């Protein structure tokens, strides 16, 4: 099938939104489809958002391919008779963030009108679409709430799950992620104050700010956690990461209110490891069933410490839950087979 994969991009910024586009392109090609990717710059500048959106209506790709798969908002405004959406998020300031402190848009008549325009344009594009999938239940829920659209999630898999493997159930909990405030590595370190066993914590990833780097150092020093917590504050290779996962006891991913379950959770599961997360982490709740393939605990250091200890003392349990993680990935059909099938049927 000839497929155009379209998305919008923020020029000179690499984000998750571009990964999913590149990976989908690669996989569709691997499955024998002819793929052309179109990436149109789009800046979420509310004052020009209307004209930018209008621009997207004016490209003519309607007979260039059998199917259009549109990804990041509002690339779905492109016109095509056979349009599929992999909807990954709204223009959130105009939707769910509108009433929150994260929204910096002035609440003026002008902005209200722009907001209405964005919503109507979205609604129009959704009506034009043959099929809409999202990347998570959270996004599906928002789509239903704001646009009255029912759409099932198609969960995005890892590009190369086969690079992960299990070597043993070691003595450390592993947190692999960019180190930044809302990923709450500090909370994981705090938890180490309360552990009663020999369990350790390993954190890898580069710090977003110098301030956070200092904070982490001080927290470790003040609590004499040097022997229990290892920080590798830099970008590490995929191979190094796979090794950390292969030898850890379990993974941990405890961001505050993220949409997705996080590629790192999948990496842990593909390494045969359970994932520890928090009840307020957002998307991890769709992947992790408390007590089955990991734990969903209150975002409190003591609660985290408890499950760290439990897994350390019962490695059979860690293994069982890790294996359940692999089952859970299958259950939710987080595979390219599934993604490609859904978008090409």
């Amino acid at each position, binding site marked *: 099938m000839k497929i*155009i994969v379209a998305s919008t991009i923020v*020029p*000179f910024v690499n984000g998750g939104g571009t990964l999913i586009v590149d990976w989908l392109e690669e996989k569709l090609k691997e499955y024998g489809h002819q793929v052309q990717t179109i*990436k149109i710059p*789009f800046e979420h500048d509310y004052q020009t958002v209307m*004209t930018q959106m209008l621009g997207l209506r*004016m*490209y*003519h790709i309607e007979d*260039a391919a059998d199917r259009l798969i549109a990804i990041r908002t509002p690339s779905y405004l492109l016109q095509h008779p056979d349009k599929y959406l992999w909807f990954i998020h709204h223009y959130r300031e105009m939707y769910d963030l509108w009433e929150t402190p994260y929204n910096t848009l002035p609440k003026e008549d002008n902005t209200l009108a722009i907001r209405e325009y964005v919503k109507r344009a979205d609604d129009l594009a959704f009506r034009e679409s043959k099929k809409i999938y999202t990347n998570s239940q959270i996004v599906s829920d928002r789509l239903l709430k704001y646009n009255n659209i029912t759409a099932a999630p198609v969960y995005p898999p890892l590009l190369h799950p086969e690079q992960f493997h299990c070597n043993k159930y070691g003595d450390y909990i592993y947190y692999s992620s960019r180190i930044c405030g809302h990923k709450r590595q500090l909370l994981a370190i705090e938890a180490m104050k309360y552990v009663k066993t020999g369990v350790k914590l390993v954190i890898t990833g580069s710090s977003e700010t110098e301030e956070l780097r200092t904070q982490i150092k001080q927290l470790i020093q003040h609590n004499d956690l040097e022997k229990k917590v290892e920080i590798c504050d830099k970008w590490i290779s995929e191979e190094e990461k796979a090794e950390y996962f292969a030898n850890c006891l379990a993974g941990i991913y405890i961001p505050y209110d993220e949409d997705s379950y996080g590629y790192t959770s999948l990496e842990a599961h593909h390494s045969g490891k359970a994932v520890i997360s928090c009840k307020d982490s957002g998307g991890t709740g769709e992947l992790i069933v408390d007590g089955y393939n990991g734990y969903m605990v209150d975002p409190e250091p003591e609660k985290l410490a408890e499950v760290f200890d439990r897994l350390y003392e019962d490695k059979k349990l860690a293994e069982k839950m890790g294996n359940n993680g692999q089952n859970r990935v299958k259950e939710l059909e987080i595979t390219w087979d599934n993604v490609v099938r859904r978008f090409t049927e």
Partner: protein
Amino acid sequence: MKIAIVSNMVPYLYGGAEFLEDSLCKRLGEYGYQSMVISYPLKWEPKEAILDSIMAVKLNQLHKADMVIGLKFPAYYIEHPNKKLWLLHQFRQAYDLCGTEYGMFDENNVNDMSIRRAIVDMDNRMFAQLEGKIYTISQVVSNRLMRFNGFSSEVLCPPLMDASLYSVSAEYGDYIFYPSRVNHSKRQYLAIEAMRYTETSVKLVIAGRGDAKGDEDYLFELIERYNLSDKVTYLNRFISEQEKVKLFEQCLAGIYIPYDEDYGYVVLEGFHAGKAIISCTDAGGPEALVKDGITGYMVESAPQEIAKAMDSMYLYRAKTKEMGLNGLPLLEQLGITWENVIRRLTE
């Protein structure tokens, strides 16, 4: 500095222009710039779609870039305070191709002419704002810009991107090599027809996918019609760079005979492999590189004339070799280097 290279795209088409975009982007990166290619879809059927394509670009926004280098219509209309052009070509249908068999606008059709006029107007307005910041990839493009729009520009010939893949070859086979996209204006058919008139055992190898399936079918049909299957090989698929390099290294000489093209990477590739090139006097850009009797043969675009050049390549091998070796020194002499291109575009 963040530099956006803007160009157009026709879905599923990857040719010399796309290759140049990627090459420039990569080279800018090597020189310490943050660079990326932005490609805006372009469609010209129906003709009104051209106007939509222009509008779409004008409504887009590229404020995140510190500088924009515009390569093609209509992408070069993107609004930006710091813009330079390195023109691959304008929308030729509105200019030199208008009124020829390759044209699309009917001079007796009011609608057609108003679309054509809109394109020319838009171009003129933009060029007027960019005086002194307009570069082109060849003298042909600069000449057209002067002739049709009255603006002067400087020629910056693009060097070969991955010259390191090539080495001057000591091998000289028995075939003339034509690698290129296949379509009517690249005139592969002319090379095939020439093979009817050759008197030596010279052979022809054509490689490249057709823009449309019909383009490929037509070549196969000609080969069959003239019973040339022993002499002409057509590889109707995308060939990898490695494969192309190999075919160049083993060939006798190259051939590049499009109708009035702006440039011709094929010529550079041939030179980097130490091979002489056959081209035609109406081929456009190749004229600056293919010097008759020095780096190849420049002949009239008639099958009989091309056949003679092919036979000469085959018969006078010492001369063919010598001409092939003259290619690289000529490129250096003309200053066709990335250092030069990037310095001019970013200064």
